[in-house]
């Protein structure tokens, strides 16, 4: 409350300065939106047509065609395997990276920056972009998908794990060091037990995310259910595409249930 406000006999929620700030923010948002709308390359007739196009598309999806369900479920299982194997490898590989990227365990400043560089580059490139690269390297197929998911997951798991290592209680480490324990033993008996809960929580979370990501790998040729989806869409077989979409929906919901159950059991 400033002096000038005392003149008001009406209640207002904001002071004049706050109101001006709010208007400025609103104006900036409106400007940004206006700029985006006016300069984006969109054929507006298509925009007004979009609802009917979407309706038409969904109309052609009904009823879903289950004739290929056996093959779809088999590839769906393959998708689960891609996600699980990739998560397992990524989690193992992220342990040393987390150790490098945590300020209190990293051997030197140089290794700290190496660790951070690995985390940042892994994290800021999306799985699909990694997949593009690995499809070019390994050729279309499951290996590209597994490696792509691994590369993206290392950054995610490593970052959260590194933060957990930085937040540990230092006293067990000091106690072990005082007894003359080797570096490896300090890690095994003082650090690992403290980050175990985070480790499992992050692994389960990442598995859940990877399950979703692995469903789209096929769209760039990196294996999994996406290949069938792409095939169905390219041949305008919308009823089969609908079956695939329902299968993916089921998989994702099931994955969420399983990861919630695992979290309850382990943590």
């Amino acid at each position: 409350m400033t002096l000038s406000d005392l003149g008001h006999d009406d209640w207002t929620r904001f002071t004049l300065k706050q109101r001006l700030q709010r208007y400025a923010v609103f104006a900036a948002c409106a400007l940004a939106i206006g700029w985006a709308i006016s300069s984006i390359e969109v054929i507006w007739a298509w925009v007004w047509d979009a609802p009917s196009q979407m309706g038409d598309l969904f109309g052609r999806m009904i009823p879903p065609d289950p004739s290929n369900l056996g093959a779809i479920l088999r590839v769906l299982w393959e998708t689960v395997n891609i996600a699980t194997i990739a998560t397992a490898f990524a989690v193992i590989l992220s342990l040393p990276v987390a150790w490098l990227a945590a300020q209190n365990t990293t051997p030197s400043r140089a290794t700290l920056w190496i660790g951070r560089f690995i985390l940042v580059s892994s994290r800021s490139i999306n799985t699909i972009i990694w997949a593009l690269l690995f499809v070019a390297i390994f050729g279309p197929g499951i290996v590209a998908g597994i490696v792509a998911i691994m590369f993206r997951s290392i950054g995610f798991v490593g970052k959260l794990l590194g933060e957990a290592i930085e937040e540990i209680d230092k006293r067990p480490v000091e106690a072990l060091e005082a007894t003359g324990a080797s570096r490896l033993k300090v890690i095994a008996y003082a650090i690992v037990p403290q980050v175990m809960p985070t480790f499992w929580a992050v692994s389960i979370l990442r598995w859940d995310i990877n399950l979703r990501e692995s469903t789209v790998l096929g769209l760039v040729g990196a294996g999994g259910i996406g290949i069938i989806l792409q095939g169905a869409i390219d041949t305008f077989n919308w009823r089969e595409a609908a079956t695939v979409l329902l299968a993916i929906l089921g998989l994702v919901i099931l994955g969420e249930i399983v990861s919630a159950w695992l979290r309850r059991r382990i943590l």
Partner: protein
Amino acid sequence: MSTQPAMPRDHWRKPSFIANPLLRWVVYGGAIFYVVWTLAWLPIDWVRVAEGVERAGRIFGGAFPPSFERSGLLIDGFLESLKIAILATFGGVILSIPIAFMAARNIVPLPVFYLGRAIIIVARSFHPVIVAIIFVKAVGFGPLAGVLTLIVYSIGFVAKMLAERIEEIDFGQVEAMRAAGAPYLSTLIYAVVPQIMPRQVGLTIYQLDSNLRASAVVGIVGAGGIGSTLANAFGRYDYDFALAITMVIVAAILLSEAVSGQIRKRL
């Protein structure tokens, strides 16, 4: 057991992660069996994978040094991504408010609640890339498909978080409004909205950042933005240009993450 002399326990062993030894070995054995069995059965062409090393050398050889020659194309793609992100955030946030109200158990009747939750679950379950290829088929290539995709993506996240916030509000204000005889809509606007607004602003900024990331990805399947530029560069084996694009994407993501983190911290 009692015949054995009581050994003095001078040796401490770390308690095992799974207390029951039988269950422990079953879990460990099962995990190893799963990994071996899956790796054996996944359709992996090892010969082709082995060629990958040499190809990786060629690709990275072609990628260095990154080429910024066609930076005009790069800037156009990036600005388009930014426009897509802004419009999708605007649309998604506006739409997510009514859906969040529908999905909050404490203010709507049960059937509406189930409908709201169902919308959120469907929007969240599908990876943006899958949503994008459907929109690309429905409304054609270009940024419009990207905007629509990211609107769905934003709804999945923002509406879910907002619904959770609405379920946590202080209900006293709602009761006060009801006691004063306010109609349903006024109750929502004056008693609920002020309580959720700070959260909504934070979510909006987070989502803008998140949409910018995602817009780089949905472009790969033809939904406009810098992702399309990247996919084209990859398709034409322009690895030096692709590396330049990737570097710009990473820099933009890091910058937007830092900015959005700063703003949210100050809210």
